[in-house]
């Protein structure tokens, strides 16, 4: 994929879907016509740096795509928090997060209901509203920070389709005729997303220790987390921090694909070990003693919830094991695929 294709791909991500193909075709024609003109003027093909300069002049792909949007929707509380450029992404991320959260809440309530617990409308409403406010707050905060950065530095962007303090420049050794295939590089958007997601997960995991309702919802009134969770707490935190470190490294060195592949396999093994110890524990929640309901009143509920967790862990273990096998096989069979980085003497540390 050449530079123009990558630029167009970045623009396409933010275009209205109905017109995407048509707009990209037209923009592609415009860019290539301009490059041909420049080549005729110079009497030689354009260098990669010259191509980059031409694309840079066209501006941030997100801002360019935003001009094609007919609607002008935004989020504002007094002052604008999220503008029309990021609004479609904001809605997409928020919808996904809320959808996932409500599926989890629904599953918990279904399990409780099947165990014979009485679930009131108020329980469902309060849990749903709490999650709604948390998700809304966190996602809005993250996007308003991105918006702030985009407004402040509209010229900072790279060709992975993202904006912010990311870079485009790459130095290639002079004696190398074939440039590295940057389509295999790790997108900085992906690295930033992982850092944000893992940080939120870290805060959540830490919070669950003190506030079990964050994971059990209203069931926290009569269920307790089993001691196994305290035993795996530090390994989980450690693995999450390792993933943040890895994403931070790949943010600076997106060309370190082999490093990511090996590192991910190691972290994956650690994750599988945690799942193994969890499955071996046999019980993950216990019934809380209740003076009002009497001892053992919630044992049945705990039993049903444990069964659901068991199946969940089993599915996670099988899925993770298959993924691990796929990753290791790919690592062994395609060693050349990861070999793009040695040609690059100095990477993305140069800002254009």
């Amino acid at each position, binding site marked *: 994929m050449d530079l123009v294709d990558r630029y167009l791909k970045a623009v396409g991500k933010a275009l209205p879907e109905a*017109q995407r193909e048509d*707009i990209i*075709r*037209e*923009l592609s*024609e*415009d860019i*290539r*016509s*301009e490059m041909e003109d420049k080549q005729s003027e110079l009497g030689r093909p354009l260098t990669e740096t010259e191509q980059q300069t031409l694309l840079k002049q*066209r*501006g941030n792909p997100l*801002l*360019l795509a935003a*001009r*094609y949007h007919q609607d002008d929707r935004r989020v504002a509380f007094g002052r604008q928090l999220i503008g029309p450029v990021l609004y479609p992404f904001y809605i997409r991320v928020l919808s996904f997060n809320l959808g996932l959260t409500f599926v989890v809440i629904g599953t918990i309530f279904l399990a409780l209901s099947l165990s014979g617990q009485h679930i009131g409308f108020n329980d469902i409403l309060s849990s749903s509203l709490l999650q709604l406010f948390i998700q809304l707050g966190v996602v809005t905060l993250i996007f308003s920070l991105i918006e702030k950065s985009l407004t402040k530095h509209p010229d900072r962007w790279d060709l992975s389709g993202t904006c912010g303090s990311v870079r485009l420049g790459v130095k290639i050794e002079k004696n190398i005729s074939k440039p590295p295939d940057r389509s295999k590089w790790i997108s900085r958007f992906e690295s930033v997303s992982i850092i944000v997601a893992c940080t939120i997960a870290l805060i959540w995991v830490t919070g669950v220790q003190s506030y079990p309702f964050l994971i059990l919802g209203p069931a926290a009134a009569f269920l307790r987390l089993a001691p196994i969770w305290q035993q795996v707490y530090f390994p989980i935190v450690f693995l999450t921090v390792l993933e943040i470190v890895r994403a931070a490294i790949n943010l600076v060195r997106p060309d370190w694909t082999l490093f990511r592949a090996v590192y991910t396999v190691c972290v994956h093994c650690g994750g599988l070990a945690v799942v193994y110890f969890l499955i071996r524990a046999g019980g993950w929640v216990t019934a809380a003693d209740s003076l009002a309901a009497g001892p053992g009143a919630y044992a049945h509920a705990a039993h049903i919830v444990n069964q659901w967790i068991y199946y969940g862990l089993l599915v996670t273990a099988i899925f993770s094991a298959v993924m691990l096998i796929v990753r290791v096989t790919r690592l062994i069979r395609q060693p050349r695929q990861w070999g793009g980085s040695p040609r690059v003497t100095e990477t993305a540390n140069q800002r254009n």
Partner: protein
Amino acid sequence: MTPGTNNHDMFENLRLELRRGSLVLAVLAALRKEQYGYTLRKTLEEQGMAIDEGTLYPLLRRLESQGLLLSEWREEEKRNKRFYRLSTDGKVILKQLLAEWQSINSSLNGML
């Protein structure tokens, strides 16, 4: 912010505002003859009405959706290009806008 910078920013905003209205007229006038996007951009640039593609193409789409322009994809020099031209409604509107422009122009000339 210094007063100089402030004045410069204010001038730049007013200049862009003034140009924005003229651009529609310039694009409609240039499309009396059928052209595709890139040549249209070059024509406007040569006439001293430089416009970046991020402004031109969305504007062309808007004018087309308003029924003032017609477009079609056609092959030229072994490449597919989208050609634009004025529609019948576009010709009428252009005539009216030009009359309005000339009226504004003569009024301003009288005042300056």
